[in-house]
C-alpha cells in the first residue's frame, strides 16, 4: 500500500491516500505509531493465513506485480482502491486483533510501507518536539515491528548529502551472500558530488546506518528476488513504468535517467529541470537552490554508483533503437546542459560502457541477455580493441 502525505487538495499522481495519511499524521507519540503499524502487521499476517486474497484473485504472480498491486498505483480506479482500503482495513484489523506477531515464525511476512511525500513528516511534528521528530518516530516504530519503510520525496523538499565514505552499498558479484547481513535500511550511495553552493542542507542529522533513501527502493532487502528479478524491478523504477521497455517511448527524462545511471553526470542549475528524475526515475536530490524561481523548486540531482541501476540501464541500451533514441535526446539535452569538456567525459564513459556491453552480449550468443548480467567479466584486450573501434 502507498501512503501519500501530500495535502488533501493537492494535485498529482498518485492521489493522496487519505485513510492512512490521516492516521499517520494524527499519531502524536511513538506508542501510537507502533499501535498503527502493529495493526498493519496483524492484517498482513491475517491475510497470509486466510484465503481471502486468493479468493479475491489479489495474490500476484510475481514480487514485482505484488509491489505494484499493493501500492494501488495500478488500480483501475484510485477512488475505488481507497474505498476498498478504508473498508477492508478496518474490517480486517478487527478480525486480526488477536494475532501476536511475536508468536509468528519470522519471515512469514515481509511488509514494505511506501510513504510518498515523506518530507511532510518533517513538517508535521508533535507539539514541543523538534522538527523531524515525527519522521524519526515513524522510522523507529516501523523498525521495531520489522517494517521496511520506503520513503520518497517527490517534490525534492529534502536535500541530502550521503556519506562519501560509503560510495557503494550494493555488492554486485556476491550480493547473495551479503544480503542476509544487510540492515533493512540501506545508506544511499555516496560519492555524489558535494552539495552545491546556495543549497539548503537537510536540517536533520541522520546517522549513516539509517540514512533515508529518498525516492529509492531498498535494493538489498529485495535481493532475495535474485539478480534478474531485481534488474527487472530496477528497469521499472528507472523508466518509471511497469511495462516492458520495448513498448516504451524514450523521452528526454528517461534518456537522462538511462545515461546518468551509468555515467557520472550532474543535472541542475541549467535549462534542464532534473526534478522529474528525482521524483520518478531514481535520481538523488543532492541540493536545492535557496531562491526559488517559478512554481517548482530548482534542484541538483545525480545518480550514485548503483550497479543494479547500471544493469537496468545496460539492458535498456541493449536495443539499438532505444540506444539511438537515448542519444538523440541526450544531444538535445546537452544544448542546454553541461559544458563541452563534460560532454567529452560522458562520451568517453558511454563508449567504454557500450564496448563492455557488446562484449558481454558476444560472449554467449546462445543465452538471452534477459538471463544474464552485464556485470559479467570480459577480456581486457578485447575490451581495448572494441573501445577504440567503437568510435569509428
Amino acid at each position, binding site marked *: 500500500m502507498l501512503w501519500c502525505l501530500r495535502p488533501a487538495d493537492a494535485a498529482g499522481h498518485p492521489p493522496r491516500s487519505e485513510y492512512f495519511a490521516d492516521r499517520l499524521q494524527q499519531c502524536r507519540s511513538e506508542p501510537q505509531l507502533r499501535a498503527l503499524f502493529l495493526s498493519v502487521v496483524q492484517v498482513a499476517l491475517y491475510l497470509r493465513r486466510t484465503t481471502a486474497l486468493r479468493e479475491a484473485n489479489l495474490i500476484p504472480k510475481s514480487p514485482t506485480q505484488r509491489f505494484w498491486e499493493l501500492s494501488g498505483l495500478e488500480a483501475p480506479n484510485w477512488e475505488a482502491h481507497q474505498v476498498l482500503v478504508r473498508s477492508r482495513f478496518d474490517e480486517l484489523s478487527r478480525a486480526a486483533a488477536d494475532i501476536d506477531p511475536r508468536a509468528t515464525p519470522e519471515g512469514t511476512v515481509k511488509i514494505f510501507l511506501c510513504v510518498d511525500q515523506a518530507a511532510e513528516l518533517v513538517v508535521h511534528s508533535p507539539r514541543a518536539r523538534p522538527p523531524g521528530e515525527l519522521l524519526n518516530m515513524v522510522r523507529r516504530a516501523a523498525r521495531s515491528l520489522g517494517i521496511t519503510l520506503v520513503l520518497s520525496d517527490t517534490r525534492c523538499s529534502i536535500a541530502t548529502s550521503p556519506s*562519501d565514505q560509503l*560510495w*557503494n552499498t*550494493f*555488492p*554486485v*558479484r*556476491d550480493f547473495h551472500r551479503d544480503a542476509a547481513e544487510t540492515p533493512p535500511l540501506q545508506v544511499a550511495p555516496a*560519492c555524489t*558530488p*558535494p552539495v552545491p553552493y546556495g543549497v539548503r542542507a537537510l536540517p536533520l542529522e541522520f546517522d549513516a546506518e539509517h540514512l533515508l533513501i529518498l525516492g529509492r527502493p531498498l535494493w538489498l532487502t529485495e535481493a532475495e528476488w535474485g539478480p534478474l528479478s531485481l534488474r527487472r524491478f530496477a528497469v521499472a523504477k528507472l523508466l518509471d513504468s511497469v511495462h516492458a521497455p520495448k513498448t516504451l517511448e524514450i523521452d528526454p527524462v528517461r534518456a537522462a535517467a538511462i545515461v546518468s*545511471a*551509468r*555515467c*557520472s553526470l550532474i543535472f541542475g542549475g541549467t535549462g534542464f529541470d532534473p526534478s522529474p528524475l528525482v521524483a520518478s526515475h531514481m535520481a538523488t536530490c543532492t541540493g536545492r537552490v535557496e531562491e526559488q524561481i517559478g512554481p517548482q523548486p530548482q534542484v541538483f540531482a545525480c545518480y*550514485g*554508483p*548503483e*550497479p543494479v*541501476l*547500471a*544493469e537496468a*540501464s*545496460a539492458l535498456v541500451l541493449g536495443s539499438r533503437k532505444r540506444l539511438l533514441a537515448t*542519444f538523440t535526446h*541526450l*544531444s538535445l539535452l*546537452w544544448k542546454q546542459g553541461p559544458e*563541452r*569538456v*563534460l*560532454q*567529452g*567525459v560522458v*562520451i*568517453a*564513459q*558511454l*563508449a*567504454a*560502457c557500450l564496448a*563492455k556491453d557488446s562484449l558481454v552480449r558476444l560472449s554467449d550468443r546462445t543465452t538471452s541477455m534477459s538471463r544474464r548480467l*552485464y*556485470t*559479467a*567479466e*570480459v*577480456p*581486457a*584486450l*578485447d*575490451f*581495448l*580493441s572494441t*573501445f*577504440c*573501434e*567503437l*568510435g*569509428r
Partner: protein
Amino acid sequence: MLLAHLLASFRASGLEPLEHCQQLAPFASACLSFTHFTTKEDARPLSQYEIRRCYMKAAALILEPTSDAPQLFLPVRHQVSSHSGHHHQHQQQHYGGILVHIRNYGPRTSSKCDEQQQADRLLGRLHDVAPSIAPTFGAGLLYTLGGRSASSRLVLVAYVAPCSVLEALAKLTNVLSLSTL
C-alpha cells in the same frame, strides 16, 4: 587470439611487434567487470583493496571530471599462475587498471611528439593514481575525441582519430606500449 591478431596487424603495418606483444602479455588473461562510472573526488592514491572493491562492485572511476584533463580508471583483474613445489600450481589474483586519458582532437593531437609526451605523462599519472599496481599490471590509453573531419561535432560518438581497423589497433597497441608500466 587477439594477440595473434595484433601481431598480424603489426606485420601489416610494418611495426616491430615483439616488444609490444611482450608488454601486452600480462593483459592476455586480464578481465574487466565495470558497468558504470563513479567520481573519485579526492587525490588519495588507490590501494589494492580499493581497486578490488571497485572491480567487485562493477564500478570504474572518473578522476577529476571537471579538469581540463579528465581521466577514466578501469579496474582490471589479473589472474597469474605461480608454481610452488613440484606439481603445484596456484592462481593468484592481482588488481591493476587501465588509465584512459580523454582529450579532444586538436592541431597537436596527431603529433607523434605530443603523443609521446602525453604517454609519458600518463605513465606518471597512473603511478600517482594507483602506486599499488604492480609493474606490467597497469596500462594507459589516450582516447581522442573528435577528429579531422568531425572536430566540430563533438556530440554523440566518440572518435578515435579516423583510421582503418588495423591502424586503430596498431595505434592502440603503440600507445599501450608507451604507457605500460
